[in-house]
């Protein structure tokens, strides 16, 4: 049997990236500011984690305007959803095995 640790996705190692993905999976889209408030991180920190997820093609960015202010929202991609589900499965398996 494969070792489930290998199945864990390195990208979801960080608490912040895990939080971003969780929020995006249950919402159609989430704005930068809402993410910031939900996860309670600084702008720069959040932006760099979002960049990582975007580069892995797990999320996509949409820039729009609310009045004059820019409003950036994020959505999860099909690939992101799949990767996140695999990660959850791996977590579940590990907990099962260790519980024995």
């Amino acid at each position, binding site marked *: 049997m494969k070792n489930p*640790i290998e199945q*864990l996705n390195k990208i*979801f190692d960080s*608490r912040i990236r*895990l*939080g971003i993905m*969780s*929020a995006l*999976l*249950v*919402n159609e889209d*989430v*704005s930068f500011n*809402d993410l910031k*408030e*939900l*996860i309670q991180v600084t702008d720069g920190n959040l932006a760099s984690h979002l960049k990582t997820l975007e580069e892995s093609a797990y999320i996509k960015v949409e820039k729009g305007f609310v009045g004059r202010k820019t409003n950036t929202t994020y959505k999860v991609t099909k690939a992101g959803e799949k990767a996140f589900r695999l990660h*959850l499965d791996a*977590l579940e398996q*590990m*907990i099962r095995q*260790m*519980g024995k």
Partner: protein
Amino acid sequence: MSSNEQNLDAIREIRQMMDRSSRFISLSGWSGVVAGGSALAGAWLAREKIAAYFQDGYGKTEACPVCLRNDLLAIAAGVFILAFVAAVLFTYFKSRRDGIAFWGASARRLMWNTMMPMLTGALLIWRMIELEQYELVAPASLLFYGLALVNGSKFTLGEVRYLGYAMIVTGLISLWFSGYGLYFWAFGFGVLHILYGLSMWWKYERYTWLSGPRA
């Protein structure tokens, strides 16, 4: 190294983020109790007014149906304002205690999804009153409020859905009992709200209430 503790932490984090980002969970049970209480008080006042009207004025020259209507509208407005203010206040305190932002995307979504059916119903009832068709005012208010709750329940505590179903059933039954509208109204807005509020408090708030504010 990834230990079991860490994995459980990760799962807890995921679950929390999913809940927090999609649902507004700070609704306090107390707001249901206060809304129900003020509805019962309002219904009692309305019954007194109606009884007085039929006893003293009916058929006489000093009878004033417009005054009665205005009195009843004022009572309804008072009940609504009291219930709304109580809901906002208790919810604000609860969100502070839980450390959740009070006015965020989830609160906006909840507001929009409940206000839309409610405003539609309010306009319909307004027009009924204008046309002096009072018979279906109580059923309509119960029905539209029930639909608003069912619609909003996707964005807050799931139990709100059952309160909505109960309101709709009450409203539907009352359609065939015109003349008893006030009693159905008192049952729906009064008794059901109080039952809901108490059970929510029992389920979610009892512990924090007893153990003081959460760290």
